[in-house]
């Protein structure tokens, strides 16, 4: 029993040392490694170190292509490698790895010259989340017609947004910046110091990035907090005086942002 426990705890120590060495290039190779030809196992361990950091940097590069374009390949990989070592994945499902990367970028001293970079990264996180989000059909035309005929109860309408929807408000022109980096051609100069709101969602199989109409982000945030139409519109107006409910609703419906539009059940009649 004792011998077995010692063997097991020895295995445990070895795997802990191995794990620690993977993310810390300064750390010595764990004890107990060997090579058939007596060569220094450090070089062999480096294969795993490169696999771990390289594959995770690749995963971030796939999620943040515009951030990479904005800072360049080398800068991006160096910044991403630091992030990987500080914030390695906590989940075995890598699709959502990098949700903390925007905050890391915001605090990353060498990137301070591009103050909009973190918000572009937030937009790119939202795109990947929308791509993999749950499926839901947009609200049907019949349901919309029925809801719009609810007369003086319209303010009570409960709206449900698509599970893929994310909103983002930025002091920078994030949507314009992002859109400018979608083609292969010359990138026109972008006036970055213009506040923009973004709506990110999936319509069918395609992820859309829309410039949010004035007040739409406040409106949708209120809708997602389960406020009825009237209350959500009041909050949007309070946030932005030129909020246009009719125009916003028609844009949301046109892009399939809403999946339901209904009056709450009356408790009694």
């Amino acid at each position, binding site marked *: 029993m004792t011998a077995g426990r010692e063997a097991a705890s020895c*295995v445990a120590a070895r*795997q802990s040392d191995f794990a620690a060495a993977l993310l810390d290039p300064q750390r010595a190779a764990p004890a107990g490694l060997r090579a058939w030809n007596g060569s220094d196992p450090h070089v062999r*361990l480096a*294969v795993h170190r490169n696999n771990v950091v390289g594959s995770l940097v690749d995963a971030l590069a796939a999620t943040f292509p515009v951030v990479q374009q904005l800072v360049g390949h080398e800068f991006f990989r160096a910044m991403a490698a630091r992030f990987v070592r500080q914030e390695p994945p906590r989940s075995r499902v*890598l699709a959502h790895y990098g949700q903390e990367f925007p905050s890391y970028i915001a605090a990353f001293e060498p990137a301070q010259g591009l103050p909009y970079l973190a918000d572009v990264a937030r937009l790119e996180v939202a795109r990947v989340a929308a791509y993999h989000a749950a*499926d839901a059909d947009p609200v049907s035309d019949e349901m919309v017609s029925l809801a719009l005929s609810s007369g003086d109860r319209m303010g009570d309408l409960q709206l449900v947004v698509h599970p893929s929807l994310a909103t983002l408000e930025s002091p920078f022109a994030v949507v314009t910046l992002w859109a400018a980096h979608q083609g292969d051609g010359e990138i026109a100069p972008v006036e970055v110091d213009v506040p923009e709101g973004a709506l990110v969602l999936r319509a069918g199989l395609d992820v859309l990035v829309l410039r949010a109409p004035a007040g739409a982000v406040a409106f949708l945030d209120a809708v997602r907090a389960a406020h009825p139409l009237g209350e959500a519109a009041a909050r949007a107006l309070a946030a932005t005086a030129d909020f246009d409910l009719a125009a916003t609703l028609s844009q949301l419906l046109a892009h399939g942002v809403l999946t339901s539009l209904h009056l709450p059940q009356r408790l009694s009649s």
Partner: protein
Amino acid sequence: MPHAAPTRRPGRPATGPLGPHGMASGLPRRAGIGLKPQHFGEVLGTRPDIGFFEVHAENYMVDGGPFHHYLTRVREHYPLSLHGVGLSIGGLDPLDESHLDRLATLVARYRPASFSEHLAWSSHGDTFFNDLLPVPYDRATLERVCDHVDRVQERLRCRMLLENPSSYVEFEASTMSEAAFIREVVRRTGCGLLLDVNNLHVSCINHGRDAQACLRDLPLSEVGEIHLAGFARDQDAAGAPLLIDSHGSPVDEAVWGLYADVVATLGAVPTLLERDNDVPALATLLAEAGRADAMLQARTEPRGLGACGGGV
């Protein structure tokens, strides 16, 4: 506790599903390729003549969207091999039950003909390393790996295939050969072997072993699927060749040679051409699979495979 007699796991039948919810059919004895997002539309539009498609389970552990949309449609036309890369069967921690739940959900949804995982670890504590990391071949590790394989088969109600690893370092603590370790896991748990011929070649070059001897030592009668892939070349500190299992290039001629030996010994076995990096055009992948298919078709006499529901 992990000190019970090693005979506590009765050998399971070599073929057939483990329970009433086991997978119903095995992979065809043909070549298959990985299903890549960049090929989704072309696969559905052209329906290439290929034995099966393979996906990494973790890529499909998402709520919805194009991955599920396309895999659902591809599955209507092709058998599926579900290959896990995140279970960490060689890990110290108990298996992640929520990860097993996600796997079980995928198995129920897509009814794969085969589920496979690696003899490796990829998580430690709460960190996921996204790499297949080596284990020492000693008694304590053997006990743990067998416990983990038992749990997978119990949870998924299916005979799983365990893949031989590619490795770069060895452990002073190892008390048995890789082949002997795998033989013992297969004997105790009743799992099958996913024979990665590229991994075998890579590991044999990296550790100065004789590939033919390693091949003979493996439980070849329990092979349910074969993997072929490309590697990259590097050197160790002494200047000896160090091959990296990169999945980023065509299959090397040395690996094709070993594969020919395996097919000559085993007959036709379902064979996956793996390409995960620098993925080329679909036609290029299909051409490589065609080469394996031609070798398999020259050896079509039926054999009991023993894969997850594979042998009839």
